[in-house]
């Protein structure tokens, strides 16, 4: 059996028996990160620089939703991810 298929089978029980798999999440994250290692040149970022593509442009709205959710939900987090101190991808 090819090595890749074996590793997929070894990985499968974790995702089936549990609702959330940390190994799965890490694998997906690593795959996305590695796939995107190619640099997007500044001249190619016109579409990325638009406000609707900039996470920081939702900052005030997400701050309010975060405030509501902290008062009404048992959970937190998510809002403002990527915008905290970083200002998005710096595409502007």
């Amino acid at each position, binding site marked *: 059996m090819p090595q890749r298929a074996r590793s997929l089978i070894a990985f499968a029980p974790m995702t089936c028996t549990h609702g959330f798999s940390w190994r799965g999440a890490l694998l997906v994250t690593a795959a996305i990160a590695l796939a995107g290692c190619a640099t997007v040149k500044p001249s190619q970022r016109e579409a990325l620089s638009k406000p609707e593509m900039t996470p920081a442009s939702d900052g005030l709205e997400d701050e309010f939703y975060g405030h509501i959710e902290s008062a009404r939900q048992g959970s937190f*987090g998510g809002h403002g991810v990527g915008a905290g101190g*970083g200002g998005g991808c710096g595409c502007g």
Partner: protein
Amino acid sequence: MRLSRHRRRARRSLLSLTRLAALVLVAWAALHPGTTAAENRVTLGGNYYRERSTRVIQPYVRATVDAPDERLTLGTAYLLDAISSASIASGTMQATGGDNVFTEFRHEVVATASSRLGEWNLGTFFRYSTETDWISRGTGLAVARDFLQRTINVSLAYNIGVDRIYRIRNNIGDRLPWCGGAIAPQDCRAKGSGTHSNLLLIHNFELGYTHALHRYVLGIFGVQYAHLVGPQDNPYRENLIISAIPETHPRVRNRFAIAGSVRATVPQAHLVFEPYYSFYVDDWGIEAHAPELRIHARVHRHLRLRARYRYYHQSGAFFWKADGMYIDNDGQCTRDHPERCATADVKVTAWDSHTPGVQLVWEFDGLARHPGLGWLEGGYLELNYNHAIQHNRFGNARIANATLSFAF
């Protein structure tokens, strides 16, 4: 009132931390000369939240000034929270003589400083918030760096919250410190730390990762961890517990959230698709999933519309009982002693919700081309409306906000 040594020391430490962070920023900016972009901005806004028993009106104003450019940006904000018939009202209505509508005001002021120098971003803030029965101070530091010609941005943030919690006793503002349901009111102090103190300490860590995966695709990933120690139950909810015992939650909570989203644009159609998902887990036994989809459409050169749908589901905490039957036991509520816990808090029950919403953004750059209206350049008006269909005791909620922002 004479401040105790403990309180003075804690307050001094928090202020020293904030001052040190601000000084580091100023020195950092001064040591890195260069000319970069500058923009000052003032933003006025109002948030509105309405459900069956609660209404929140929240006006605010914010201003940021580049001094002299993005190497050092200083900001300030003021926010007023007017909460009518809040969740605490069932208790405070008795304490205040049975008013039909109890309105509470919370004032919040924030000071910020940030600096962008080449590939680095630094930021710090100090926040002070006060209301009748809750005083909160917070400060934090954030650092971020761009990599691969700004294709990747990694950010790291830490902030600390130092809160003091009280219980209102009557309608002239008399209050007692609240140390949680396990501590008798006469044994609770408004100073120091520990189980007999009304101090709630919050440590919060955030890691953010943003990646331009393609010229049309942006990936965003974040992790957040918070450690809370102190009273986390509500002093007024004992009236909602069948056996009328004080609400008693664990004093310690470890919270963890992970979130990821993608923004993908279709330039020809002027559309952006933004799927989003967050997962949350804590040591109270609550797990939450929140998938969301946002679709942005640029319907005109300076006009954007956005539709949003969010599904939210959470499980109940280990000490939550669907029948609401709790027994009055002495001692702290912990995993090992769930029989000492009691709750009437919707936030720790199992429930789900659906939230559709719409947004309209009008950018003023088109108007700014007309004679005499050049000052509108960079300004915008943003309107949001969301309707939350909540399957819990709170019922459905209407959420709206308006933002008017000008650059100068």
